[in-house]
């Protein structure tokens, strides 16, 4: 390695990004070239000094105000989405506790679960899909009867998206509302490979007057768990 090549590799050398042979070759050159050693030292010092250049922090409310300006500039117009995330260990343990205490496992094909919904109120229904292994290519679909609405997707009775399932628990958190009286349902389908798994939850709408008292505690957290 000559001086020019060595100069070109100063950053990679300092970052430890050189291959073993390149590193060896550069070390060899540096052992006999005082000029390159001096340059390397200067660059190293310069990089360190630059990385320590001070900064004046923004005002403490900057982030909050910046997002507030965005919210005002672009007011919501009924536009909602769904987000995919991963529960932290704390949330995961919370969820598992919930499942073990409140949930029951319904095997595909068995009797659908019945859930009571108060009219025109949003209830979050959490479905847990319990996958035996990681499943890479999955198509999930949700079908809602005419009297059931999903918050953020009020105009849609059918939602389809491609995703993957993790081994173990996969949770769908669904804010649903009953808009007319009677029975309705939600059908979730999981397509993967040549297989289709279908799950059904039946909703029964009830009068709002039943919200009070003991019934209230039943509708706050409605969950079901399914094994894929």
């Amino acid at each position, binding site marked *: 390695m000559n001086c020019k090549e060595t*100069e*070109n590799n*100063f*950053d990679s050398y300092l*970052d430890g990004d050189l291959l073993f042979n390149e590193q060896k070759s550069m070390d060899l050159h540096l052992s006999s070239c005082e000029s390159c050693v001096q340059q390397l030292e*200067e*660059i190293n010092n*310069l*990089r360190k*000094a*630059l*990385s*320590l*250049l*001070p*900064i*004046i*922090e*923004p*005002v403490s409310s*900057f*982030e909050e105000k*910046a*997002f507030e*300006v*965005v*919210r005002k*500039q*672009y007011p*919501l117009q009924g*536009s*909602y*989405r*769904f*987000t*995919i*995330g*991963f*529960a932290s260990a704390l*949330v*995961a343990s919370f*969820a598992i506790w919930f499942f073990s205490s409140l949930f029951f496992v319904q095997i595909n094909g068995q009797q659908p679960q019945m859930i009571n919904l108060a009219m025109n109120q*949003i209830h979050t229904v959490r479905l847990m899909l319990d996958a035996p292994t990681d499943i890479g290519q999955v198509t*999930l679909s949700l079908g809602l009867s005419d009297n059931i609405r*999903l*918050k*953020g*997707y009020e105009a849609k009775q059918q939602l389809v998206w491609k*995703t*993957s*399932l*993790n081994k*173990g*628990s*996969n*949770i*769908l*958190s*669904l*804010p649903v509302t009953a808009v007319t009286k009677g029975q309705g349902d939600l059908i979730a389908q999981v397509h993967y490979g040549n297989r289709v798994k279908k799950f059904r939850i039946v909703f029964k709408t009830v009068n709002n007057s039943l919200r009070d008292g003991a019934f209230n505690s039943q509708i706050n957290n409605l969950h079901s768990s399914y094994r894929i």
Partner: protein
Amino acid sequence: MINIWKFGVSDHEQFEKLVQPHIKRLYTLAYRFTGQRDDAEDLVQDVLLKIYPRLEEIQSIERLGPWLARVLYRQFVDKWRSKDRSIVQLVADEAELESVDDEVQGPAGKLDLTILQNKLQYSLNQLNEEQRHLVIMHDVEGYTLQEIHNLHDISIGTLKSRLNRARTRLRELLKNMEPFESAKRVNSNRTK
């Protein structure tokens, strides 16, 4: 780890959840480009307003940080460079500084450091825009050459050469610099 699909999330919530983790670094970069806190805040605000309509695109970006850095740089070049602004504000108000480690710096050491940083900042400001941008991204903010290559589609070989030239120029400027008064702000551009 549990996979969660959460429905009924507003665009605002989704946008903030995606962008918020990058705000601090965006501000830092904006501060390096503009040299002023107010200007840096305004630049980041401009970027947020510019990208919000592209929420769907943002959701699909695997590494959002570098993408945002690129948008910020383009915004700076397009809208801010033309403004008559001083790019650099030297360190005069030490109380405002957050990144100097007071515990390891005695009063004399701190003054020396401030003088050195003023010299360095001043010299950095004397580089041409291309060189300054590269040094800020790589040496000050720690972006790798590969990341800068991805951002600007400039070959790594070219980036290395430019970086070498920029540093050579920077070292020359530092060596040739007259003794510097630490409290002196270089606001000559502003007062013109």
